[in-house]
């Protein structure tokens, strides 16, 4: 990655995506508004009678409260990851949007950073809407509608960069099924979203901490239900380093793919 090629101009790429998003925002807003209602209905009304209380971070929570921050973290992951995989792939491969941009003063680095920051912005919007619904329902601290936003942004950068790196190395759009099945689904299930990682066997609990989603869930729980089991600074640093590494990898992969 050439740092001399990075400037504020990435905002122009972000703006292009915002412009097209304005057409479909009503549909895009539905998912984060309705999804928590579905989950809370299913797990709160259906499952929580079987589960009882969850012990986590030295306190006890009813089941819907425990999973509420996990739902927000998952939405952050999904919004960023699916934006920079399927949506970016369409822009890169089918619409040749990046080829058009590369004939302007924009650098490849700026285009890719614009895509990743855009995906993180979508994560922020989803986290805000979802947290607002969960706060109204009384599952999360109402202040966390604001405090979760920087966490959603960093989490969005991490999963957006991971997704864009995969886009850079994926030969065909249907191949994304593979990382979704091997990476996103296990992360969704084993990152402490639905049960505390500490209830797993020792080796599995340690393995879960490699997942970026684990750290994102930890941070969301910290601000939304004020409980945690890992170091907050450690989780923040993990997501920061993860983002930086995958931004560099994504730019490198795209350079090999687009500049021939």
């Amino acid at each position, binding site marked *: 990655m050439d740092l001399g090629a990075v400037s504020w101009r990435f905002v*122009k790429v972000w*703006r292009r995506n915002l412009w*097209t998003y304005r057409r479909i925002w009503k549909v895009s807003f539905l998912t984060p508004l309705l999804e928590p209602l579905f989950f809370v209905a299913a797990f709160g009304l259906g499952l929580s009678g079987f589960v009882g209380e969850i012990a986590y971070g030295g306190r006890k929570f009813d089941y819907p409260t425990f999973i509420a921050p996990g739902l927000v973290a998952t939405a952050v992951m999904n919004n960023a990851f699916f934006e920079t995989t399927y949506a970016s792939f369409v822009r890169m491969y089918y619409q*040749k949007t990046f*080829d*058009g941009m*590369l004939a*302007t*003063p924009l650098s490849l680095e700026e285009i890719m950073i614009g895509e990743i920051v855009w995906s993180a912005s979508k994560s922020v919007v989803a986290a805000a809407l979802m947290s607002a619904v969960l706060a109204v329902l009384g599952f999360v601290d109402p202040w966390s509608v604001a405090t979760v936003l920087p966490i959603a942004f960093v989490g969005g950068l991490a999963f957006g960069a991971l997704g864009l790196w995969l886009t850079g190395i994926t030969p065909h759009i249907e191949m994304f099924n593979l990382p979704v099945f091997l990476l996103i689904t296990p992360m969704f299930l084993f990152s402490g979203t639905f049960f505390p990682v500490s209830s797993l066997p020792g080796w599995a609990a340690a393995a879960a901490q490699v997942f970026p989603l684990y750290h994102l869930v930890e941070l969301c729980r910290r601000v939304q239900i004020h409980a945690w089991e890992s170091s907050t600074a450690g989780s923040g640093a993990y997501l920061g380093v993860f983002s930086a590494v995958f931004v560099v990898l994504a730019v490198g992969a795209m350079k090999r793919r687009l500049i021939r």
Partner: protein
Amino acid sequence: MVGLVSAVVAVENLVKRFRDLTAVDGVSFTVGRGEFFGLLGPNGAGKSTTIRALYGFSPPTSGTVRVFGMDIRTRWRAVKARIGVCHQENTLDPDLSVQENLWIFAGYFGIPLAEAKVRASELLEFFALNHKKDAKVADLSGGMARRLILARALINRPELLILDEPTTGLDPQSRHLLWERLESLKAEGLTVLLTTHYMEEAARLCDRLVIIDHGKILVEGAPGDLVARYAGAEVLEVGGPDAALRRYVTENRLEYDDLGDRLILYVPEGSSILEIVRTRFCVRQCTWRRSTLEDVFLRLTGRELRE
């Protein structure tokens, strides 16, 4: 030939190698200010790679590419701010309307939205697209999409316009409209670099051109001069040539191509050969016409298929 200092484009000894293929093998040319310059060649000759190197899309293996006197490798941002690129593929943004395509693209150049709107409506007017300004890109015909791509390439008021096969796949009406617009841009002093497969297009638009094959420049010159030098003034195509004609052309050292069932004779201006051949050897079918750039192209690059 243009001096290196005043040249808008100066390519020196450009070499581009991909893993096992040398796409461009030591190409040098210059384009002067206000010139309409053509880059011709069969598929895979190295045209597109050369053109991609001009806007930093394809870093050279060796050699230098200077645009406005600046090295594209180090000053790419300053260069790209002053050029307009019309890609071979449709790179229009299907998520945006016709005029939004121009507004958003202007943003990539740092042009404020208010100014972009003024320029966009001027360009839509110029390219006869005003009635389509709110249409989706997907609803445009091939000719309209091409005109929009060209309009978009002009949004930053470039000093150099790069056109990569701008009329491929267009109907004759669209092609002629595009040529007229390009000619009026040229009259305003715009420097243009064009690649094309249509020799008629190159002959009509280009002041000067090069023909490239296998990554090397074969010839360079004004279209008319190249025709006179490589294809004479007139062409006589004789169908079903007999042995007598073949003997006659070799004995008289005439310029010809023998295609087996057809013999193509290249005749200089005011030659008496034409009359002799017509009366003595035109047994079956004879076509007599002016020489064109297409004759030059086929003579130099051969007639066999490339793909």
